[in-house]
Protein backbone atom coordinates (compact mmCIF):
# COMPACT_ATOMS: atom_id res chain seq x y z
CA UNK A 1 0.00 0.00 0.00
CA UNK A 2 1.40 3.39 -0.98
CA UNK A 3 0.12 6.49 0.79
CA UNK A 4 0.20 9.94 -0.74
CA UNK A 5 2.78 12.42 0.56
CA UNK A 6 0.20 14.61 2.27
CA UNK A 7 -1.17 11.58 4.15
CA UNK A 8 2.27 10.52 5.37
CA UNK A 9 3.06 14.10 6.47
CA UNK A 10 -0.25 14.21 8.35
CA UNK A 11 0.52 10.93 10.16
CA UNK A 12 4.00 12.17 11.11
CA UNK A 13 2.62 15.46 12.39
CA UNK A 14 -0.34 14.01 14.28
CA UNK A 15 1.75 11.33 15.99
CA UNK A 16 4.50 13.84 16.80
CA UNK A 17 1.99 16.21 18.41
CA UNK A 18 -0.10 13.48 20.09
CA UNK A 19 3.04 12.08 21.76
CA UNK A 20 3.12 15.23 23.93
CA UNK A 21 -0.36 16.80 23.85
CA UNK A 22 0.53 19.86 25.96
CA UNK A 23 3.54 20.76 23.84
CA UNK A 24 3.54 23.06 20.83
CA UNK A 25 5.74 22.39 17.81
CA UNK A 26 6.33 24.71 14.87
CA UNK A 27 5.97 23.63 11.27
CA UNK A 28 9.72 24.03 10.79
CA UNK A 29 10.55 21.88 13.83
CA UNK A 30 8.36 19.01 12.62
CA UNK A 31 9.52 19.35 9.00
CA UNK A 32 13.19 19.25 10.00
CA UNK A 33 12.70 16.27 12.30
CA UNK A 34 11.10 14.16 9.54
CA UNK A 35 13.04 15.58 6.59
CA UNK A 36 9.95 16.83 4.77
CA UNK A 37 8.88 20.02 3.02
CA UNK A 38 7.80 22.72 5.51
CA UNK A 39 5.67 24.36 2.82
CA UNK A 40 3.75 21.16 2.13
CA UNK A 41 3.51 20.33 5.85
CA UNK A 42 2.04 23.78 6.61
CA UNK A 43 -0.82 23.06 4.21
CA UNK A 44 -1.38 19.61 5.75
CA UNK A 45 -1.47 21.10 9.26
CA UNK A 46 -4.07 23.65 8.16
CA UNK A 47 -6.23 20.72 6.93
CA UNK A 48 -5.72 18.91 10.26
CA UNK A 49 -6.69 22.14 12.06
CA UNK A 50 -9.92 22.40 10.06
CA UNK A 51 -10.66 18.78 11.06
CA UNK A 52 -10.23 19.70 14.76
CA UNK A 53 -7.28 17.38 15.31
CA UNK A 54 -4.68 20.10 15.90
CA UNK A 55 -4.91 23.71 16.96
CA UNK A 56 -2.74 26.60 15.78
CA UNK A 57 -1.23 28.62 18.61
CA UNK A 58 -0.41 32.15 17.46
CA UNK A 59 2.27 34.55 18.65
CA UNK A 60 5.87 34.20 19.77
CA UNK A 61 6.63 30.56 20.47
CA UNK A 62 3.48 29.58 18.63
CA UNK A 63 2.98 26.49 16.57
CA UNK A 64 0.59 23.57 16.62
CA UNK A 65 -0.66 21.36 19.42
CA UNK A 66 -2.74 18.19 19.46
CA UNK A 67 -6.40 18.64 20.39
CA UNK A 68 -7.91 15.30 19.35
CA UNK A 69 -8.66 12.21 21.45
CA UNK A 70 -5.67 9.91 20.96
CA UNK A 71 -7.58 6.90 22.34
CA UNK A 72 -10.44 7.34 19.87
CA UNK A 73 -8.75 8.72 16.76
CA UNK A 74 -7.49 5.94 14.49
CA UNK A 75 -4.94 5.87 11.70
CA UNK A 76 -7.85 5.48 9.28
CA UNK A 77 -9.49 8.68 10.61
CA UNK A 78 -6.33 10.63 9.75
CA UNK A 79 -5.73 8.92 6.41
CA UNK A 80 -9.32 9.48 5.24
CA UNK A 81 -8.90 13.24 5.56
CA UNK A 82 -6.51 13.03 2.62
CA UNK A 83 -7.33 9.90 0.62
CA UNK A 84 -9.34 6.69 0.51
CA UNK A 85 -6.86 3.85 1.06
CA UNK A 86 -7.36 1.21 -1.59
CA UNK A 87 -5.42 -1.65 -3.10
CA UNK A 88 -7.85 -1.78 -6.01
CA UNK A 89 -5.95 -1.19 -9.22
CA UNK A 90 -7.23 1.27 -11.77
CA UNK A 91 -8.68 -1.45 -14.00
CA UNK A 92 -9.89 -0.24 -17.39
CA UNK A 93 -13.46 -1.14 -18.23
CA UNK A 94 -13.13 -4.34 -20.27
CA UNK A 95 -15.31 -5.44 -23.16
CA UNK A 96 -18.08 -7.92 -22.38
CA UNK A 97 -15.75 -10.85 -23.05
CA UNK A 98 -13.17 -9.60 -20.53
CA UNK A 99 -15.56 -8.91 -17.69
CA UNK A 100 -15.14 -12.22 -15.85
CA UNK A 101 -11.41 -11.80 -15.37
CA UNK A 102 -11.80 -8.13 -14.40
CA UNK A 103 -14.52 -8.99 -11.87
CA UNK A 104 -12.36 -11.80 -10.47
CA UNK A 105 -9.41 -9.44 -10.00
CA UNK A 106 -11.62 -6.82 -8.33
CA UNK A 107 -12.99 -9.50 -6.00
CA UNK A 108 -9.50 -10.52 -4.81
CA UNK A 109 -8.28 -6.91 -4.52
CA UNK A 110 -11.37 -6.06 -2.46
CA UNK A 111 -10.21 -8.73 0.04
CA UNK A 112 -6.97 -6.78 0.47
CA UNK A 113 -8.90 -3.54 0.93
CA UNK A 114 -11.08 -5.11 3.62
CA UNK A 115 -7.99 -6.31 5.50
CA UNK A 116 -6.22 -2.97 5.13
CA UNK A 117 -9.27 -1.05 6.30
CA UNK A 118 -9.76 -3.28 9.36
CA UNK A 119 -6.11 -2.85 10.36
CA UNK A 120 -6.12 0.93 9.98
CA UNK A 121 -9.43 1.27 11.84
CA UNK A 122 -8.19 -0.86 14.75
CA UNK A 123 -5.09 1.17 15.58
CA UNK A 124 -5.70 4.35 17.58
CA UNK A 125 -3.03 7.04 17.88
CA UNK A 126 -2.58 5.99 21.50
CA UNK A 127 -2.00 2.34 20.45
CA UNK A 128 0.36 3.51 17.70
CA UNK A 129 2.42 5.56 20.17
CA UNK A 130 2.67 2.55 22.51
CA UNK A 131 3.76 0.39 19.57
CA UNK A 132 6.46 2.93 18.62
CA UNK A 133 7.72 2.96 22.22
CA UNK A 134 7.89 -0.87 22.22
CA UNK A 135 9.77 -1.00 18.88
CA UNK A 136 8.52 -4.50 17.95
CA UNK A 137 10.29 -4.40 14.59
CA UNK A 138 13.62 -4.73 16.44
CA UNK A 139 12.70 -8.08 17.99
CA UNK A 140 11.42 -9.34 14.63
CA UNK A 141 14.64 -8.26 12.92
CA UNK A 142 12.59 -6.58 10.21
CA UNK A 143 14.60 -4.36 7.87
CA UNK A 144 12.13 -1.55 7.20
CA UNK A 145 12.75 0.68 4.16
CA UNK A 146 13.61 3.57 6.53
CA UNK A 147 16.22 1.46 8.32
CA UNK A 148 17.64 0.17 5.02
CA UNK A 149 17.98 3.76 3.79
CA UNK A 150 19.60 4.79 7.08
CA UNK A 151 22.05 1.88 6.90
CA UNK A 152 22.83 2.82 3.29
CA UNK A 153 23.61 6.41 4.29
CA UNK A 154 25.90 5.21 7.10
CA UNK A 155 27.85 2.89 4.82
CA UNK A 156 28.54 5.63 2.24
Amino acid at each position, binding site marked *: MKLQKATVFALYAVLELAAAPGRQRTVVEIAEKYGISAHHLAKVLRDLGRAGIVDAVRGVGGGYRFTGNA*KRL*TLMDVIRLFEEPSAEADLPLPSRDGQDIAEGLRFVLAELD*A*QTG*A*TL*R*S*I*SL*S*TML*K*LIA*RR*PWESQGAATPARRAQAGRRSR
Partner: protein
Amino acid sequence: MARRGRTQPPPEPDADPAIRPATLADVAGVIALDEEVTGLRKAAYWQDMFERYGARRRDQRFFLVAGEPARIDGFIIGEVRAWEFGSPPAGWIFAVQVRPRLRVRGLGSRLFAAVCARFRAAGVDRVRTMVARDNAVIHAFFRSQGMMAGPFIELEMRLD
Protein backbone atom coordinates in the same frame (compact mmCIF):
# COMPACT_ATOMS: atom_id res chain seq x y z
CA MET B 1 -36.45 -2.83 51.08
CA ALA B 2 -37.60 -3.52 47.52
CA ARG B 3 -41.32 -3.25 46.85
CA ARG B 4 -43.12 -6.33 45.63
CA GLY B 5 -43.22 -6.53 41.83
CA ARG B 6 -40.20 -4.27 41.42
CA THR B 7 -36.82 -5.56 40.37
CA GLN B 8 -34.10 -4.64 42.80
CA PRO B 9 -31.40 -2.57 41.04
CA PRO B 10 -28.15 -4.45 40.49
CA PRO B 11 -25.43 -3.61 43.00
CA GLU B 12 -23.01 -0.89 41.95
CA PRO B 13 -20.06 -2.38 40.08
CA ASP B 14 -16.82 -2.70 41.97
CA ALA B 15 -14.28 -0.31 40.45
CA ASP B 16 -11.51 -2.87 40.72
CA PRO B 17 -13.04 -6.37 40.87
CA ALA B 18 -10.71 -9.27 41.63
CA ILE B 19 -9.91 -11.69 38.79
CA ARG B 20 -10.16 -15.39 39.60
CA PRO B 21 -10.91 -18.77 37.98
CA ALA B 22 -14.60 -19.25 37.24
CA THR B 23 -16.68 -21.61 39.37
CA LEU B 24 -19.99 -23.25 38.55
CA ALA B 25 -21.70 -20.52 40.60
CA ASP B 26 -20.40 -17.87 38.15
CA VAL B 27 -21.93 -19.37 35.01
CA ALA B 28 -25.31 -17.67 35.51
CA GLY B 29 -23.52 -14.31 35.81
CA VAL B 30 -21.51 -15.00 32.64
CA ILE B 31 -24.72 -15.89 30.77
CA ALA B 32 -26.37 -12.67 32.02
CA LEU B 33 -23.40 -10.46 31.06
CA ASP B 34 -23.14 -12.01 27.60
CA GLU B 35 -26.88 -11.56 27.11
CA GLU B 36 -26.64 -7.91 28.20
CA VAL B 37 -23.90 -7.25 25.63
CA THR B 38 -25.02 -9.39 22.67
CA GLY B 39 -28.77 -9.45 23.19
CA LEU B 40 -28.73 -13.25 22.85
CA ARG B 41 -29.22 -15.71 25.70
CA LYS B 42 -26.89 -18.69 25.15
CA ALA B 43 -27.21 -20.60 28.41
CA ALA B 44 -26.34 -24.07 27.04
CA TYR B 45 -23.28 -22.68 25.22
CA TRP B 46 -21.81 -21.04 28.35
CA GLN B 47 -22.57 -24.07 30.51
CA ASP B 48 -20.70 -26.20 27.97
CA MET B 49 -17.83 -23.68 27.89
CA PHE B 50 -17.52 -23.92 31.66
CA GLU B 51 -17.50 -27.73 31.52
CA ARG B 52 -14.76 -27.69 28.87
CA TYR B 53 -12.61 -24.74 29.96
CA GLY B 54 -13.41 -24.08 33.61
CA ALA B 55 -13.70 -27.57 35.03
CA ARG B 56 -11.10 -29.68 33.19
CA ARG B 57 -7.38 -29.51 32.40
CA ARG B 58 -7.02 -26.31 34.37
CA ASP B 59 -3.27 -26.20 33.76
CA GLN B 60 -3.89 -25.57 30.03
CA ARG B 61 -7.41 -24.09 29.93
CA PHE B 62 -8.36 -20.84 31.62
CA PHE B 63 -11.81 -19.45 32.27
CA LEU B 64 -11.31 -16.32 34.37
CA VAL B 65 -13.97 -13.98 35.74
CA ALA B 66 -14.02 -10.57 37.44
CA GLY B 67 -16.68 -9.84 40.04
CA GLU B 68 -18.96 -11.82 42.29
CA PRO B 69 -21.22 -14.72 41.22
CA ALA B 70 -24.27 -12.45 41.57
CA ARG B 71 -22.76 -9.93 39.18
CA ILE B 72 -19.94 -10.88 36.83
CA ASP B 73 -18.33 -7.71 35.42
CA GLY B 74 -16.04 -9.39 32.91
CA PHE B 75 -14.57 -12.69 31.80
CA ILE B 76 -11.90 -14.10 29.50
CA ILE B 77 -11.40 -17.64 28.20
CA GLY B 78 -8.29 -19.14 26.64
CA GLU B 79 -6.31 -22.31 26.30
CA VAL B 80 -2.91 -23.56 25.22
CA ARG B 81 -3.16 -25.07 21.73
CA ALA B 82 -0.38 -26.92 19.96
CA TRP B 83 0.57 -28.14 16.51
CA GLU B 84 -2.39 -26.85 14.53
CA PHE B 85 -0.88 -26.52 11.05
CA GLY B 86 2.56 -26.90 12.57
CA SER B 87 2.24 -24.13 15.15
CA PRO B 88 4.25 -24.74 18.35
CA PRO B 89 2.24 -24.41 21.58
CA ALA B 90 0.67 -20.94 21.95
CA GLY B 91 -1.99 -19.33 24.10
CA TRP B 92 -5.34 -18.83 22.37
CA ILE B 93 -7.94 -16.34 23.58
CA PHE B 94 -11.38 -16.97 22.16
CA ALA B 95 -13.75 -15.03 24.40
CA VAL B 96 -13.52 -11.76 26.32
CA GLN B 97 -16.27 -9.57 27.64
CA VAL B 98 -16.49 -6.54 29.96
CA ARG B 99 -19.66 -4.91 31.27
CA PRO B 100 -20.20 -1.88 28.99
CA ARG B 101 -20.30 0.71 31.77
CA LEU B 102 -16.96 -0.57 33.12
CA ARG B 103 -15.15 -0.30 29.79
CA VAL B 104 -12.14 1.98 29.22
CA ARG B 105 -11.27 1.64 32.92
CA GLY B 106 -8.67 -1.09 32.57
CA LEU B 107 -10.68 -4.20 33.47
CA GLY B 108 -10.25 -5.72 29.99
CA SER B 109 -6.51 -5.08 30.20
CA ARG B 110 -6.36 -6.77 33.62
CA LEU B 111 -8.24 -9.81 32.32
CA PHE B 112 -5.88 -9.97 29.32
CA ALA B 113 -2.82 -9.67 31.60
CA ALA B 114 -4.20 -12.37 33.92
CA VAL B 115 -4.73 -14.93 31.15
CA CYS B 116 -1.32 -14.07 29.61
CA ALA B 117 0.32 -14.69 33.01
CA ARG B 118 -1.29 -18.14 33.07
CA PHE B 119 -0.13 -18.86 29.52
CA ARG B 120 3.44 -17.93 30.52
CA ALA B 121 3.21 -20.19 33.57
CA ALA B 122 2.04 -22.98 31.23
CA GLY B 123 5.28 -22.54 29.26
CA VAL B 124 4.18 -20.71 26.10
CA ASP B 125 5.72 -17.48 24.82
CA ARG B 126 2.99 -16.09 22.57
CA VAL B 127 -0.71 -15.45 22.56
CA ARG B 128 -3.14 -15.46 19.63
CA THR B 129 -6.74 -14.61 18.96
CA MET B 130 -9.15 -14.14 16.07
CA VAL B 131 -11.53 -11.20 15.73
CA ALA B 132 -14.34 -10.35 13.37
CA ARG B 133 -13.04 -7.88 10.78
CA ASP B 134 -15.97 -5.52 11.33
CA ASN B 135 -15.80 -5.61 15.14
CA ALA B 136 -13.71 -2.47 15.59
CA VAL B 137 -14.14 -2.38 19.38
CA ILE B 138 -12.68 -5.81 20.13
CA HIS B 139 -10.07 -5.46 17.36
CA ALA B 140 -8.92 -2.11 18.81
CA PHE B 141 -8.85 -3.66 22.32
CA PHE B 142 -6.45 -6.44 21.29
CA ARG B 143 -4.33 -3.95 19.32
CA SER B 144 -4.11 -1.72 22.39
CA GLN B 145 -2.71 -4.70 24.31
CA GLY B 146 0.11 -4.90 21.76
CA MET B 147 -1.22 -7.66 19.49
CA MET B 148 -0.30 -7.52 15.80
CA ALA B 149 -1.16 -9.62 12.74
CA GLY B 150 0.28 -13.11 13.16
CA PRO B 151 1.71 -15.64 10.72
CA PHE B 152 -1.64 -17.32 9.98
CA ILE B 153 -4.47 -16.21 7.71
CA GLU B 154 -8.06 -17.23 8.39
CA LEU B 155 -9.88 -18.67 5.36
CA GLU B 156 -13.41 -19.90 4.90
CA MET B 157 -15.98 -20.82 2.24
CA ARG B 158 -19.67 -21.50 2.00
CA LEU B 159 -20.71 -25.13 2.02
CA ASP B 160 -23.43 -25.07 -0.60
